[in-house]
């Protein structure tokens, strides 16, 4: 059952992605509307598959605190879900379905990463370090902020493309669908505006967990160090915007850099150290 729902969700992400691409090329409004419907279906079936998975896993010994984001497959799969869920919220009431062209591929890529997990897609054996209710608190808060930064990255790409097209005076079909530069710029800011305190909260909750599990709240392990760099980057972004008054391209570039650092913290760091990672499957 879980497989079936997951399969439907996966296919739906792919279909929605194709519909958005079709919309960008053929400029048919109903393609974008269908894409949104398909994405809602994807999020629902994906969520159901996670609920089923959790119900099954909780029967296993030592899986009382199991949550479906405990290893490579689950992490990327959940990440994809959160990206699309947040995208649906962001585009709600906004006449800018073209943003789907920029954001859906990112979520789909995460899903592709998930099913190509080198550790398989089965329910993992939770190592003692991950048997904690903090898994249900710290990780979702981090993911909510990471996924929001991913959305901001998608909008940032849209911004730069739009700006490039306006300057080059060679407008393409995508351009007609893109919101005004001002609006995109403001949207990036609003997303980061929400994601930043979540990132702060997530890091602090992580420190609280580390205090229970490892006997320290901050140890400068690579994950923590990069999380701190991520935090600083977006702090600089908000500061530049609110206090120095950065707008437009500079601000958009900074959001792209921020996303690169988020990816380093989320994925890259796991290749540096087996600690704090899901890629090693050791889960320390």
């Amino acid at each position: 059952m879980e497989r079936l729902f997951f399969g439907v969700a996966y296919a739906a992400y792919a279909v929605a992605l194709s519909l958005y691409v079709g919309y960008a090329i053929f400029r048919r409004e109903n393609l974008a509307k269908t894409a949104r419907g398909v994405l809602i279906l994807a999020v629902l079936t994906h969520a159901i598959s996670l609920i089923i998975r959790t119900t099954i896993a909780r029967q296993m010994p030592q899986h009382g605190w199991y949550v479906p984001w405990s290893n490579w497959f689950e992490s990327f799969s959940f990440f994809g879900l959160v990206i699309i869920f947040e995208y649906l919220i962001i585009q709600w009431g906004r006449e800018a379905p073209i943003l789907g062209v920029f954001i859906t591929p990112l979520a789909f890529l995460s899903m592709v990463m998930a099913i190509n997990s080198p550790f398989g897609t089965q329910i993992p054996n939770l190592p003692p370090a991950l048997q904690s209710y903090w898994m249900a608190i710290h990780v979702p808060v981090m993911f909510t902020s990471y996924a929001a930064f991913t959305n901001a990255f998608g909008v940032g790409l849209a911004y730069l493309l739009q700006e490039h097209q306006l300057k080059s005076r060679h407008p393409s079909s995508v351009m007609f669908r893109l919101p005004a530069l001002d609006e995109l710029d403001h949207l990036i800011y609003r997303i980061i505006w929400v994601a930043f305190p979540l990132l702060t909260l997530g890091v602090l909750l992580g420190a609280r967990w580390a205090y229970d599990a490892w006997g320290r709240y901050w140890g400068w392990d690579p994950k923590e160090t990069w999380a701190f760099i991520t935090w600083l980057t977006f702090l600089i972004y908000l500061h530049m915007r609110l206090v120095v008054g950065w707008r437009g391209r500079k601000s958009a570039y900074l959001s792209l850099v921020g996303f690169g650092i988020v990816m380093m913290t989320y994925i890259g760091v796991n290749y540096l150290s087996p600690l704090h990672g899901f890629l090693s499957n050791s889960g320390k």
Partner: protein
Amino acid sequence: MGAMYGFEEMLPIAEGSTVRMKNRPLDVTLTNFDIEYYKGTGSPSVYASNLVVQENGKEIARKRIVVNDPLDIKRLRFYQASWGMTRDFHSAILHVAGKNLALKQNEIVAIPGTPLSVRANEFLPSFSVDAAGNATTLDYEGKNPAVQVDFLIKDAVKARVWLQKNNPHEAFQIQGNRLVPAAPPPFFLVDVDPVLFSGIQAGFDPGAPLFWFGSMWLLVGLCMHFYLHQRRIRVELVPFEGETRVTVIGWNSRIPADFDKDFRSWTGQIKKALE
């Protein structure tokens, strides 16, 4: 504060033994250490230490601690940090003269049907022979469990060998002062149940509450800084040549662009209403 007034110490405690803390007059006993594995795999599912803490011979705390659940007592925290195997064992099973013999550490047991008896002396978790020809262990994780065994006739040691559980055909015997490979022996080590130790990390961090308090304020402060915007609107009505002059003055602490938009919309509405 943690660095100045706090401390952190590592207490490796073997099962059944008691260790006195360096920084506090407390005795910590490990009644036993459990390690469990997921069925059919080598991945551990539980590390648990059953601890008893005593002060002046009086028990003040008792708890089974696991990785995510430390023991809190007297503002100290005891964490499950690591574990390993000691050089001692509860029992070893030796296959000799066609039979399995269970041996306790240092116990002399007669081998049935022979004039020999056997004794197992010492255990090494990850047995290796170093450059000087001495038996040594590379770590405490049990990668290559080995037991030193003596064969005796009437309490006189006739032969002393190291038997490795994972390499039954590769025994080592002492020649001179060095360990050298022996001929593949007709006996081997079937199993060994080592005495485990648990690495308990004890910490006292008087700065922790301050840290949490500070973190909370950092969060609150950031939210206030970025999200609470102060806006002031001042509308002045001044008599001017028999009419009323309306002046609207606005001030905003952050994001001038947003405010600009709102402000224009308000003044637009006022103008419209007045006209």
